C-alpha cells in the first residue's frame, strides 16, 4: 500500500513538474509578447496590440487550466 502510494505520489510529482515547466514556458512567451507589443506601440504601430492581448489572454487561460488540473489531482 505504501509502495503504491509512493508511486502515485511520484507520478503526481512528475505531473506537477511538467505543469510547472509548461507554465514557465507560457509565461516567457507572454513576456516576449508584452515587450514586442510595447516596442511596436511606442514605434507607432497600433495593429499588433489587440491580437497580442488576445494571445496573452489565451496563455492565461492555459495557465489557469493547468492550475485547476493540479488542484484536481488531490
Amino acid at each position, binding site marked *: 500500500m505504501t509502495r503504491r502510494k509512493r508511486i502515485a505520489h511520484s507520478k503526481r510529482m512528475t505531473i506537477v513538474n511538467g505543469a510547472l515547466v509548461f507554465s514557465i514556458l507560457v*509565461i516567457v512567451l507572454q513576456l516576449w509578447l508584452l515587450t514586442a507589443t510595447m516596442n511596436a506601440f511606442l*514605434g507607432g504601430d497600433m495593429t499588433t496590440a489587440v491580437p497580442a492581448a488576445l494571445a*496573452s489572454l489565451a496563455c492565461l487561460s492555459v495557465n489557469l487550466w493547468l492550475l485547476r488540473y*493540479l488542484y484536481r489531482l488531490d
Partner: protein
Amino acid sequence: MNHGALRPPVDDHRPVSPDGRPFEEQPRWRRDFPIDWEEDDYVSRRDLVKFVVLTSGAFVVGQAWIAFKSLFGRRDVPTARVAIAEVNEVPLGGSKTFEYPQGSTSRLLVRTGESAFVAYDQQCTHLQCPVVPRVAEGKLHCPCHNGWFDLQTGQPLSGPPRRSLPRVRLEVQQGTVYATGVEDSPS
C-alpha cells in the same frame, strides 16, 4: 505533518534524503534546511505554479492596457500649416530648430539645396538624444551612441536606432517654409 518547518532532525522523524545517505553526510545547505524533501518539493512547486499564474494575469493586464491605449488613445498629429522659417534665414547646408506645433519636441529643419528642405524630429529614435545634420555626407548623426540616419528619408542607416525619424511635411512658397504635418515613423 508540518510542511516546510525547520525542525531539528529527530531520529524517528528524520527526512529521507534523495540520495539515501544519512543526515550527517548531507551537504551543509541540506542540513541547514532539514525539511521532508518530497513533501517540500510537492508543496512549493505547486505554490510556484500559483505565482506563475498570477504573473501571467499581470501580463494580460499590461497587454490589455496597451490594447486600450491603441484603440482609444488620442494621437495628436498636427496638420495646421505653419510658417517655420524664411528661405534666406537658413544657409545652404545649414539647419534650424523649430517647434511644430508650438510646445512640441524640438524639430530640425535642414536646407539641402537651393529650394530643397527636409525636416525631422530632432530626437533620435533610440534614446532621444538630439541628432546633428551632416549635410555633406547626406546623413543625420546621433553622437550619443553613434546612430546614423539618411538625410533624405530619415531612415536609420547604422547604429542602435531601428525606427525612422518622424518627418515633418514641408511646403516652400514665396520665400517661406511651411510645416504642414508630421508623418509618424514606421516601426
